[in-house]
């Protein structure tokens, strides 16, 4: 029910955006994330973007995961 999936923002018009999810285009509301820009990924939940995905933090988490894996090898 709280499912949210990453969606790539292709264009922004006012409170709405065109996004792409797994190759399929959709029109969503960005009323909850007015700061979104073209090229951002957002978390899409029931037709609304509920947050912008932080690309830098995503990279950091992957780095941490690899380090933890290394240490246990």
């Amino acid at each position, binding site marked *: 029910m709280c499912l949210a999936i*990453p969606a790539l923002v292709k264009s922004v018009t006012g409170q709405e955006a065109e996004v792409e999810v797994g190759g399929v285009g959709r029109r969503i509301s960005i*009323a909850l994330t007015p700061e979104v820009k073209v090229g951002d990924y957002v978390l899409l939940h029931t037709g609304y973007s509920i947050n912008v995905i932080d690309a830098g933090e995503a990279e950091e988490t992957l780095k941490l995961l690899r380090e933890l894996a290394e240490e246990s090898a």
Partner: protein
Amino acid sequence: MRYVDEYRDPELGKRLVDRIHKLSTRPARIMEFCGGHTVTIFKHGIRQLLPPTVEMLSGPGCPVCVTANAELDKAIALAKEPGVILATFGDMLKVPGSRSSLQQAKAEGGDIRVVYSTRDALAMARDNPDKRVVFLGIGFETTAPTVAASVLQAEAEAIHNYFVLPLHKLCPPVIKALLDSGEVRLDGLICPGHVSAVIGSRPWGFIPTGYGIGCVVSGFEPLDILLSVEMLVAQVERGEPKVEIAYRRGVKPEGNPQALRLMATVFEESQATWRGIGTVPQSGLKLREKYRSFDAEAQFQIDPGPTLEPAGCLCGDILRAVKTPLDCKLFRRVCTPEHPVGPCMVSSEGSCAAYYQYGADHE
């Protein structure tokens, strides 16, 4: 898919599991609150991969499951009102209420329509000016801002035939109620990722400070869960419970300020009744006085009749993590996803559905 596939790498997963095995010496009872996490854990068999010191329990974080029968009966009664279109997320259709379900009410002629978004419900109101469209507002803090946004848009466009039946529930107060009850003993909590995308990680601070239990906010891929378990086990080993975020790409400590603002504009906190848990103060949302004209509760006279609970169903105990689906005599024999007796079997995120789908031998 970007931001999904990277967090499913089986090789990294195996190494993380090894690490958890090496790290864990003390018993760690960990609850995942959110039904979405339960699905990931069962789908990937994560319970069986963990060392015997780590025990996983499923919590009440399934909005469909915790909707009380009295609330559902209200929605069903509303759907029978003349000139009403009841718009609902699909998950709610098959949930049995006291005497009927939305699906049954639909078969009997109720105008019940499944929507993916409040945007669709609002469009329905625009397209059907002679009807009254009622959106069945269920969901946690993840969903409530989207409903708030729809009410504000209806106000801006002067759409007067759009209503919300506000049944939203808030997660921190119910976790507090569970911990206060003393029924379950926990060493760690995996906090809901998309609820936290909205509210942030700060509202969980009372769990380590008040109860000495560590919390990690997790994403929904298997590596997210394993990282969260690793962090919680490390906290248990060090004896230092705190709030950490394993899902940093989606969650900030302060949450999403705009979503919180819209939610606070439209809604105020109120007490709410949770299936199996009962009435919890400040754990629900109702529409503020200013938005009363959009409030189905205020605008319709609804009498759903007395509430009945399904005989033999243990959903309530399962939601409080004091029983598992295997304790239910009806599980698999009488109660199946095709013929669900209780909501924990209807919702794909319910514990009974997870046990059914991914094997009953998970304990």
